[in-house]
């Protein structure tokens, strides 16, 4: 089985999709000759040509709005938005149309669209290139939102997204693109949307997280080994959430911490904390904790290490859940 990193899993999956389905079209800024600014579409332009791997004009509303029409018209567009911080001009099309089209047409018009969005910080990128904007998307009815943190899940979730009749935003954690390698089966397979993954088994406390923060949680759990047994739940799908998996884990450990990179207030961690009260309240031995980015705009990178959750902050927060 070939070993690959997360971005190679994305590229090879896009390649296989273009090869097996004529309706699949990849489009975005610089995705053609250049292979994307992260090289996620490397080599695809040469292989499939500019009609299937389309360099678009520089306009995000245009990319998403046109993709919506292409999806309705019978193609299977996979659009790339260069960085999540530049998704905002396209949010109107996602909120006003992609997420609403099926409902407002009584199911007569569906939008089988995939939007790939690299997100998150920790890479010393220029300002406004490191946002984690999942809360806006998860708060948009009609959209599905997935985020892999491993090469294996990247492939399986991308297949699930492509096969889904609903619009799916596929968030790609930039910092994990080339972080680790993993065996990825060569054939097509699906990681079902709406299913979380126990990334590490433990008995004392559950850390619920996704994307870049999975790696941080793993590092922290390793450091606490022998002292605290940490279970890590990698959500993989942010909408729909795998509520059963969250409840199962927290009912087992009796303690929960939700870890997100995005700013704290009204972030997804708040929603998950509320869900934990719904389905695991009587098992809780401590208040549900949240570790998140502060409520400031994602800073220029000189401050980045202070902004992002660190193993130290996470360790301290985990220890607090264990105090009486």
């Amino acid at each position, binding site marked *: 089985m070939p070993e690959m990193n997360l971005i190679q899993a994305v590229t090879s999956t896009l390649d296989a999709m273009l090869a097996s389905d004529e309706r699949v079209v990849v489009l975005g800024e610089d995705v053609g000759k250049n292979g994307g600014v992260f090289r996620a579409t490397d080599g695809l332009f040469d292989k499939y040509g500019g009609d299937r791997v389309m360099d678009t004009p520089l306009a995000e509303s245009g990319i998403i709005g046109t993709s919506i029409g292409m999806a309705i018209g019978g193609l299977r567009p996979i659009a790339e938005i260069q960085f999540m911080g530049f998704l905002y001009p396209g949010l*109107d099309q996602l909120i006003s149309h992609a997420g609403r089209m099926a*409902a407002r047409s009584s199911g007569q018009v569906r939008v089988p669209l995939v939007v790939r969005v690299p997100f998150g910080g920790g890479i010393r990128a220029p300002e406004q290139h490191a946002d984690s904007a999942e809360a806006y998307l998860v708060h948009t009815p009609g959209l599905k939102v997935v985020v892999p943190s491993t090469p294996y899940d990247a492939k399986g979730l991308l297949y699930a997204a492509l096969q889904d009749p*609903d619009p799916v935003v596929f968030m790609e954690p930039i910092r994990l693109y080339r972080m680790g390698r993993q065996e990825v089966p060569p054939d097509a397979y699906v990681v079902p949307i709406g299913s979380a993954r126990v990334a590490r088994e433990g008995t004392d406390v559950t850390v619920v997280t996704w994307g870049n923060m999975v790696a941080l949680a793993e590092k922290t759990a390793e450091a606490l080994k022998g002292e605290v047994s940490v279970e890590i739940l990698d959500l993989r799908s942010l909408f729909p959430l795998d509520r059963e998996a969250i409840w199962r884990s927290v009912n087992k450990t009796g303690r929960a911490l939700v870890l997100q990179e995005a700013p704290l207030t009204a972030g997804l961690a708040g929603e998950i904390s509320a869900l934990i009260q719904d389905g695991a309240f009587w098992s809780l031995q401590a208040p549900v904790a949240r570790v998140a980015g502060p409520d400031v705009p994602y800073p220029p990178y000189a401050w980045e290490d202070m902004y992002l959750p660190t193993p130290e902050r996470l360790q301290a927060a985990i220890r607090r859940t264990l105090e009486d």
Partner: protein
Amino acid sequence: MDWPLVQVLGTKRDKKADVELATALYRDMILLRSFDERAINLQRQGRIGTFAPSLGQEASEIGSAHALRRSDWMVPSYRDHGALFVHGVPLENVLLFAMGRAASLSSAVKALPTAIPIATQLLHAVGVAIASRRLGQEDVALTYFGDGATSEGDFHEALNFAGVYKAPVIFFCQNNGWAISVPRAHQTASETLAQKALAYGVEGARVDGNDALAVHQVVSEAVARARAGEGPTLVEAVTYRMGPHTTSDDPSRYRPDDEYLDWKTHRDPLLKLGGFLLERGVASEALLNTWAEEARARVQAGVDAAEAVPMVRPRGMFEHVYDEMPSVLHEELQAIEEVTPDA
């Protein structure tokens, strides 16, 4: 570059006009006007919600829609009831939309749901047009919007994308003089709206939007170019909104009376085309009246059909949001059903 206003009625070109086409256009225009009048009454009686009338724009609506084949895509905004009728959407569906139900559509018709956020639908038209071409189909897309929409970013992104990809799409802008209370002159310093085509490297045309034959001709030419792979066209139909923006609007707050009276008296699209039919001996006053009566009867049938549709149930709000209902929506639906009589 010059952007002359294309006209047929009242020029020597109307000698060659197709009277059968003129008759068909007239009959759909009178249907639209009857529908409009009735819908406003229904709104006043509380039987439908807010309604956007087409009064004064019948030639633009009907003339353009008649240039399409049924297999072509129609991508409408909220004022395009007439165009939707021509394309095959049943009258009662449009009424149901005004009664707060799902968007005016019919599964048998290639039309997208009525778009509400201004100019956003233009990009969808580009997308379906690109898809049509990629899938080896001949179908084109015709999208509708107003003068105000030309100020939105999506208008520019759509023209730009369409130009770059040579998409078979027709951008049909009804310049009706107003965007709610804001006059056309406040939307743009451009002399015409058609000239904006130039910046995107696409064809542009300017047509008398109250001349149904001219609209039909200009849009048909644009459709033919698109079908032949020659790319998109921006059509500016110069018309006038003779009614309020919607039933919630009071134009006396902002609209000069003399301007309105001038259009109503001299440029009413129905009087224009009706006059032509009379002059050519195609129809008599009596026949025009018969057609008007038949139109009213069709509208009545649509009203009856719409009002016979049962009340909505909570499930309808949930069942189509996702292809498969996620468990969280299921629970939310159940909670509402539990407290809704007859759910």
